[in-house]
């Protein structure tokens, strides 16, 4: 995928739930690449996951900082907050609505 961005999740119990949460937040054009010990969840130019989606799939009270323990790496740039994590490329050819520049 060109301009792929997104987390690379490590093997753990929560992987499937996290993927479902990301799917909720990015219903279109999401690609999942499963290599056993790691799973790439990626989308062109922009991808986000919100605390709301993660709480739906992993339980209430999920703290966004916990996402770190299941993310071995990521593609693109990252921006973290208490409510969402965003992966993006500034120079990707995507809509200005999505690009957080």
């Amino acid at each position: 995928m060109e301009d792929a961005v997104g987390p690379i999740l490590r093997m753990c119990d929560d992987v499937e739930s996290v993927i479902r949460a990301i799917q909720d937040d990015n219903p279109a054009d999401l690609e999942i690449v499963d290599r056993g010990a790691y799973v790439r969840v990626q989308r062109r130019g922009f991808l986000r996951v919100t605390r709301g989606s993660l709480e739906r799939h992993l339980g209430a009270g999920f703290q966004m900082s916990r996402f770190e323990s299941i993310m071995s790496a990521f593609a693109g740039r990252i921006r973290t907050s208490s409510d969402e994590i965003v992966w993006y490329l500034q120079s990707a050819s995507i809509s200005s609505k999505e690009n957080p520049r």
Partner: protein
Amino acid sequence: MALMKREEWEDLVRDVDWTLSYADDDAVFPEWQSGTGKIPREAWSAWEESYKISYPEYVSIQAEKEAAAFAVKAALQRSTIFSSLDEGWKSCAKVHFGGVSLAEYTAFMAEARMARFGLAGPWRNMAVLGALDEIRHCQLSLFFAHEFVSKDPQYDWALKAFHTNDWAIVSARSLFDAMMLAGNVVDTAIQLPLVFETGFTNLQFVGLASDALASGDINFANMISSVQTDEARHAQQGGPTLELLMKHDPVRAQWIVDKMFWLSARVFAVLTGPAMDYYTPLDHRKQSYKEFMEEWIIGQFIRTLQDHGLKKPWYWNEFIEGLDIWHHSLHLGVWFWRQTVWWKPQAGVSKAERNWLNTKYPKWEEIYGPIWDQIIANVNCGNMQATRPETVPWLCNACHLPLCTYTSSPDGKYRVRDFPLTHNNYTYHFCSKVCRQIWWEDRDMLHVKTIGERFLAGEIQPRDFPGVLQYMGLTPDVMGDDAYDYKWATDYREPLGPESSHPRPNSIRGRERIPSEALSIPINAKFGNDFVTHVIVVNTSDTMAEVAQKVAYHSVGKRVRPQDRDMVVYYEGRAVANSESVSQVGIGPFQQIFVDYASDSQGGR
């Protein structure tokens, strides 16, 4: 009680800079450590980390990660998994433990320097967490390896390796010292968090984890992927630092990235390449090393660099060509000089494995097939002496790896070349033009003597191959041997064909006694299309015919098919008459010659 969101209070704690009044700013943040260069001092207030985390969050998450890593270790400790692991796979883990454990401690020092001398408060905070991360990684690696020391003393090199002068460690130490310790902290932030941790460590800690899991080493896979979750966070120190550099000094930014990218790629070619393409059991290989490089480095990392406004490195074509070459040559070297490593290299060239290599690397058979055929013939003849070295390879003055890089020629053939540079009446040798250029520009940072230079300077005694092994700290209980006790060679018990089953001819002579009136000098010599150049000691009175014999001794019948033909010595690109002596030709110490069979010669290369 509901907690306030981090965003509501973090600005109070993340930026703890204040205007100094009791001390000069220059004294607290000296340029040689802080390295702001063309970036104005006030510009650092714009430094903002993209991956934000508070200290309470950090402690909580790290405790959770530690508990998870140790829970898996504890659960598997009583299992029989270790005894069922493939010997080739165990070598992957041994390379990792020896090559990485104490490098993590060096990374701690780099983080601690950034935590002290970084010119932005938020950066220093982030580096403090990075320093704690690296201590965790060092301790994890040492502790996980320690469990196996009683079963296999090679695991003891997790702690020991960086305290030795093993050639692989000299190479790694040279890189890590330049990357993490020798420069100012701005250079360090680009070299370590950005280039090494955002790019290359993913390959070893995440890519290799998939091979580990497939090979059944759940504990190792769990450990290294846990480590990399820390890296994904603290590697983000590189981005904001790069943004400031790109704004105020883009030339410096591009140079630092280009330099460290190349040197990192060279070391990963020996650290990770053989592990993925030769040591991991064939059935468990997820992708080839080249495919992992394409996924993680070319597809992912380079795109991120471009997003910051950087260009591809100037040597891009050489790097891409090297993905088909470097790690195959280095693997061949590691296997042939297997006594010099603390693991058991798996040859990885059974017929099935060779088919896989040829599928993944279409040039493999043409370049490496004939060399392995000669080795296989020697193994199957029981001529094990011919499968072992009696001298040392010539090592590159920049990356400290053997001069064994094939590059393409205008006629389409691949040849190993030497790239020399004479400076202050001393000739340095490099594996590539790029290593030579990096060394020339940054020679103050990279000026470590190679093992070969130490050997020739008399620092290694006795001055022979056993002396080299002793200097490297290798004892018989840990020095490497073939992982499968050469059983893979039985695949080839049927004759390989007349061209590869020639025994080593008696006409190839070893070192001769040096006449007292002659001066003994070391030269850098390569025979035919062998994959590596060697340190060869010749006498100034030797004729070229005698020199050819001495050079051939270390290649012909070992890795080069013997032929019943005359040999020719080439010096400075021209053939030299067999009757001329070393002194008559003017060959001096440390200079390079090339020897080949008469009709195969290529005018010096």
